[in-house]
């Protein structure tokens, strides 16, 4: 017999988790199945809504002002501005004290590891002291063995970008790290567990050794930025200890993949799933589906098939949410001849000639960046004729098309808004 639930969410990233949480809040019995790890580990951990318009205007001061003008088919246009607001406050409840930014509609400007600033709606508390709108002078600290963050360069870039403060960058060696290619989790573990390390001054604890190293380079700055490797499970404690020892505020600069703030967000979300009673299974793909016997109208999915190393396990639910990600997450795939959605083969609008999928200017308006499913306002994916593919399937997050999240800085916001709407509607329909 099948494993049965009210709502089955396929995909374990921000959109999938949000829709599972929203459906559970709506009273449904929810299961989330996810294949490989989500792209949250690639993510900065910032929750952006809209940083730039599709035409490239920005950075936007207030993303909500711009939502009404988005073109038809954009995921925000599909769900509407109120849903974006509801989804953000839903996220605020889930994230609690771990995130900041809910006091205003305006975008915050968060310095990134390249020394640019990113407009974002919510940010982890670990980055709060580092905002670019804050006029206090700043010391950025990089590590010799972590070339992803070149602190002097990032500081110079911030100043050139017109940040209203003096920024200075120094590079030091990280006490206790000997490998040139130690993993970011190794740095975080050393600080989390405050392991003992040997420095020139003898044996001491990792946090103390790091503070001592940095203190010697401090020239009166009252805030110090580190690459985002300051602990994992005990990040708040690590930051507080360093701040105490340095007599300065300490913040993290979000990094590229793999990213600790992304991993912390993932942990936070999965903890929320557990608390909400959502059942999860990871590591196994959905490989197929069966529809209910034809009733003349739009087809309904009866069950999907999960592959467990060759054993095919049917999972049945009343409502389904597809949140498998975009081209990177492999919720949308391409071959030479076509672009497709691999589980339900939902329609993905794209040019038939693959030379029309891209433009030569790398940073130009790339058509492929907008590839994905085209949904109705209920977020049901539509077929080539504009009819819902299935009556009980909704889609959320990067599997949707019609927007370029990298250019707009809208990835997290679209995942939250569409995930929230898809999950809420799915639970409502179970009741009906």
């Amino acid at each position: 017999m099948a494993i049965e639930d009210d709502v089955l969410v396929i995909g374990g990233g921000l959109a999938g988790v949000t829709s599972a949480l929203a459906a559970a809040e709506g009273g449904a019995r929810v299961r989330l199945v996810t294949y490989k790890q989500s792209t949250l580990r690639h993510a900065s951990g910032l929750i952006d809504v809209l940083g730039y318009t599709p035409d490239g205007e920005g950075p936007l001061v207030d993303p909500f002002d711009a939502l009404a003008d988005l073109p038809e088919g954009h995921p925000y246009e599909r769900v509407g501005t109120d849903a974006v607001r509801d989804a953000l406050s839903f996220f605020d409840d889930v994230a609690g004290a771990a995130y900041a930014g809910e006091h205003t509609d305006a975008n915050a400007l968060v310095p990134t590891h390249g020394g640019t600033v990113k407009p974002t709606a919510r940010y982890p508390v670990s980055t709060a002291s580092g905002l670019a709108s804050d006029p206090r002078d700043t010391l950025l600290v990089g590590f010799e063995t972590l070339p992803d963050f070149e602190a002097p360069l990032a500081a110079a870039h911030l100043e050139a970008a017109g940040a209203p403060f003096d920024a200075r960058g120094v590079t030091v060696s990280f006490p206790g790290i000997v490998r040139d290619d130690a993993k970011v989790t190794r740095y975080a573990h050393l600080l989390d567990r405050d392991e003992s390390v040997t420095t020139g001054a003898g044996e001491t604890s990792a946090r103390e050794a790091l503070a001592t190293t940095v203190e010697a380079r401090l020239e009166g700055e009252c805030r110090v930025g580190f690459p985002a490797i300051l602990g994992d499970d005990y990040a708040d404690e690590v930051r507080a200890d360093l701040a105490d020892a340095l007599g300065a505020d300490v913040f993290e600069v979000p990094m590229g993949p793999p990213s600790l703030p992304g991993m912390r967000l993932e942990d936070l979300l999965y903890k929320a799933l557990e608390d909400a009673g959502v059942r999860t299974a990871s590591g196994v793909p959905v490989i197929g589906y069966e529809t209910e016997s034809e009733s003349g109208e739009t087809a309904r999915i009866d069950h999907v098939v999960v592959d467990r190393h060759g054993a095919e396990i049917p999972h049945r639910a009343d409502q389904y949410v597809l949140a498998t990600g975009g081209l990177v997450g492999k919720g949308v795939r391409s071959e030479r001849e076509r672009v497709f959605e691999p589980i339900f083969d939902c329609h993905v609008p794209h040019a038939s000639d693959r030379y029309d999928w891209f433009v030569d200017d790398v940073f130009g308006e790339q058509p492929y960046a907008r590839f994905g499913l085209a949904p109705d306002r209920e977020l049901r994916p539509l077929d080539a004729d504009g009819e819902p593919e299935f009556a009980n399937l909704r889609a959320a997050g990067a599997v949707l098309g019609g927007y370029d999240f990298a250019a707009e800085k809208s990835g997290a916001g679209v995942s939250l808004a569409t995930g929230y709407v898809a999950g809420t509607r799915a639970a409502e329909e179970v009741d009906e």
Partner: protein
Amino acid sequence: MSDAEQPTDDHVPGAEDDEFEPVQVFPEAESMDLRPGADNCYKCSTCDTNCPVAEVDDEFPGPKFQGPEQWRLKRQGDHDIDDSVMKCSNCMRCDSACPSEVPLSQMHNTARGEYVEENMDKFSREYIRNRILANYRRLAPLGAAFPRTANFVMGLSVTKWLGEKTLGITSERDLPEFATETFRAWWTKRGGNATSKKRAREARAKRGDAKVENPDKRIAYFHGCYSNYNTPEVAKALVRVYEHFGYEIMVPEQSCSGTPMFANGMLDDARRAAETNVRELGAAIEDGADIVASCSSCSMSLRQEYPELFDFENTKNVAENTWDAIEYLRVHEDLEGELEGTSVKGEDFAYHAPCHSRNQGLDGQTIEVVDAIDGIDAHDVGDSCSGISGTYGWKAENYETSMKIGEEMFEHMEDADAETGLTECPTCSMQMGHGTGYEIKHTLEVLEAALVGADRDADRRKRQEAG
């Protein structure tokens, strides 16, 4: 698939006419071509952030190096496999971490096999020790033949001291005790398959199953070494739970699943064991049985590693028809429905999902199943690795790393509102017990208490009423 394998560029004039000749970027075609996997790696390093060893061990370069990068380096011809591959604990977490379908554990297994074959001194203490650990299955019968003596001798501090000095097996751990009667001895004494057949038929009649004669309700039990020699109570629980549902059980001849051999790079040993298992289990499938395993590493091995590494006739068939014991009941029976209304008196459990369960998508099932039983709860202690990884944590040089990895799990177990541990993996169970001093149970034992315990009580009542 790379462009070199399927070049159908219709924009090249005359391309259709010419037979395609792939460019040989890398020399020598191998029997196992890992190139598509290596090509899929786009260096996101997600695997590295999932590696429990790289997080605590400064000398381990992580799965991205061990897998795709080392595979590429090897194409240059003059590179040996880096000896750091022996520090991989074979937890296989990198497999399900990878968002790009790189077969990391397959790459690790082949690299480790090649390292042991070509670079390891066959007379070295390390090789001999690893061979002994990997072939536990061959020594266990001796211990099991004289369990009391063996347990006594192994418990002596002089034995442990010798083990550490001569073999490099840590003296910090207590070797697992041998049961006074193996599962197979119990099974034979109980009357083997014939008795099971009879009991299953009775159970089906009692359950009101439509078909009392039902050849579809037949499983072949892959018990593995540990539940045979050390924890037969787990194997017996499986038998009783399955018979409760009306299943007839077969216990085919079997060898070690191969997991400890893969982990130690003893691929020849693993191949021999796999050959026996595929032959015997394949025959059981012919007889209409599905394969069921109670140890998550055994099922992982049969399902994933066999098809990745071996190509005996029936390998794929065995893989596709092998199930985890609880998963099988959830899909073929209404397990949760059956458990509704049952109750178990006793304490709550601190549950740890083994990495090899996690990789099979089974990490949530014990919590769900125990939820349905009244009177007890299982608290998930999080997604960290226990750190022992089979034979890994038994090696003196890995003991400290193993305990560092386990620290998070120990803390969460102690934070959980429970004094007994629960898991499906024998070596995770050793680590859980070692780190906390708790008694550790298997999920099947809980199911037995809920389902069969209730049967027994009812029978007893009936007998009393009858007189």
